[in-house]
């Protein structure tokens, strides 16, 4: 039903539907993402954005695109869920913001930027959320080492006499 409504509205776009353990998932090209999200919120009544995250497919064998941004939608009254994902690549990791659809997307998008470097255009207060503002890398990318590159210990030492 959700599939047919979406297929009807976006007749020209190709969607890739899949289902795994009673979860419905759809892959949408990045240009149609915002329209699809808006449609899901207003027409299909998915009124809550449960989560927004990204996956770095650098180490996935036979992956064509590097970053997959995933949106998890929920309709609160009936409990229907939908998972929408889109693939983007460097150098233009830009997506339109979803804060004008659901206000909960605000911090989720900032965190996605913080960890992966995905920029959300049109965000009202776009800066890093969890890491210090001067941090220069995106830690959850697969090419960033787990122990970091020395940022965690880059502070002055206080000796006993100075205290």
């Amino acid at each position, binding site marked *: 039903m959700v599939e047919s409504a979406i297929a009807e509205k976006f007749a020209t776009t190709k969607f890739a539907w899949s289902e*795994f*353990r009673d*979860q419905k998932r759809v892959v949408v090209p990045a240009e149609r993402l915002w329209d699809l999200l808006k449609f899901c919120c207003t027409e299909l009544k998915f*009124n*809550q*954005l*449960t*989560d927004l*995250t990204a*996956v*770095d497919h650098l*180490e*996935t064998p036979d992956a064509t695109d590097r970053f997959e941004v*995933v949106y*998890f939608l929920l309709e*609160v009254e009936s*409990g229907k*869920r939908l*998972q929408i994902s889109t693939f983007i690549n460097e150098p233009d990791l830009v997506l339109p913001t979803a804060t004008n659809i*659901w*206000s*909960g997307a*605000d*911090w*989720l998008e900032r*965190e996605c930027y913080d*960890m992966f470097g995905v920029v959300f255009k049109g965000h009202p207060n776009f800066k*890093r*959320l*969890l*890491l*210090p503002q001067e941090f220069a890398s995106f*830690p*959850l990318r697969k090419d960033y080492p*787990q122990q970091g590159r020395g940022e965690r210990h880059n502070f002055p030492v206080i000796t006993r006499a100075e205290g």
Partner: protein
Amino acid sequence: MALELIDSPDLMDAQKREGSWTLNFGPQHPATHTTLRLVLQLDGETVVDAEPDIGFLHSGFEKLGESLDFNQYVTIVDRMNYISPMANEIAWHHAVEKLIGIDLTPRCKYIRTIFAELMRIHDHLLCLGACVLDLGGVTAFMYAFNEREAIYEICERASGQRFHTSYTRVGGLLYDVTDDWVAMVRKFVKSFPRAYDDFSGLVMKNRIFVERTRGVGLLTREQAIAGGATGPVARASGVERDLRRDEPYLAYNDFDFDICCARGGDCYARFQVRMMEMQQSIKIIEQAIENLPGGPIFVEDNGKSGLPDKTEVYRSIEGLIHHFENIMPNRQMDVPNESIYAATESPNGELGYYIVGNGTFKAYRARTRPPSLLHFALFPLMMRGCMLSDVVAVLGSINIIAAELDR
């Protein structure tokens, strides 16, 4: 009953902003529940704007999830919502087992349900106790912590650790529970109502507490849904959704319990919801412990999950091989090359895990969906029209756990 925000000053009023001053409610403050920072714009005592600044406990949990396997990561997941550690473990292994496609044994489901509900009581007691402590009532805090000690002892009897038990495993539990554990839980069920009444009498009808929390921190139903609020915060604003009833997992289908909702949307409503949930949790635990089924803890799948008993490992070659096959990193069970999102009703809200598997026993990406993050993002909305001293009450009522917020 009405959820309109009466007398709320306009946050974006330029004139108001001009006269305002900035107060840094810093990362080190007793009432910020460890490591939260708020930059408040105040106009006298009234809060005009509140901008949260987080990340003071960001430890790279999700990066660790990519280098530890499913049974090792449970130790880390414990340390997220550290107030109810086993709730995180149950949620994590629920997601992993859904990915692999394992259905647990009845005994395991019942024990996990009992622990999930015990952790709910544990969490709510601390939330209420700490909030009351911040508002000035030290006695109620002591009473709450005393009850929590009883739960710590129950956890310790089952797993050996008071806290951060890492008790669940893929397909089962670390150890089976003994008869004296069952006796301890029964004793807890008998003694909790008395303690609950004591606590409730100290707090819920307390004139000062009621005055400080009623009408403060209003969150309307639409704001809660659009903002992603779940759990007690959402249910106190009229959202009738509880994953234990709507997407039942573990053994919740077998029990008879109610969902607690309120319509007020203010701090007092959130506390009321938490108090009522504690009563429902005790009801569930009572039903579960009386009907605890026997049988094995680990699921029967040709030994792919679970380690054999140590006597078998040391005395028989089959036991040794079985142990080797389940522990060695390149020999563990095969996992579908798919991704899954699975959520449970943790005490704080909908705690979900998005696991992207890559065929091995390690997650390729282990994402936690933190309820506290979305609740804290709603905080500036709730602060409209509040005074400085209400900041503490509102912050306490939404139960922000910094480790879950920052991960």
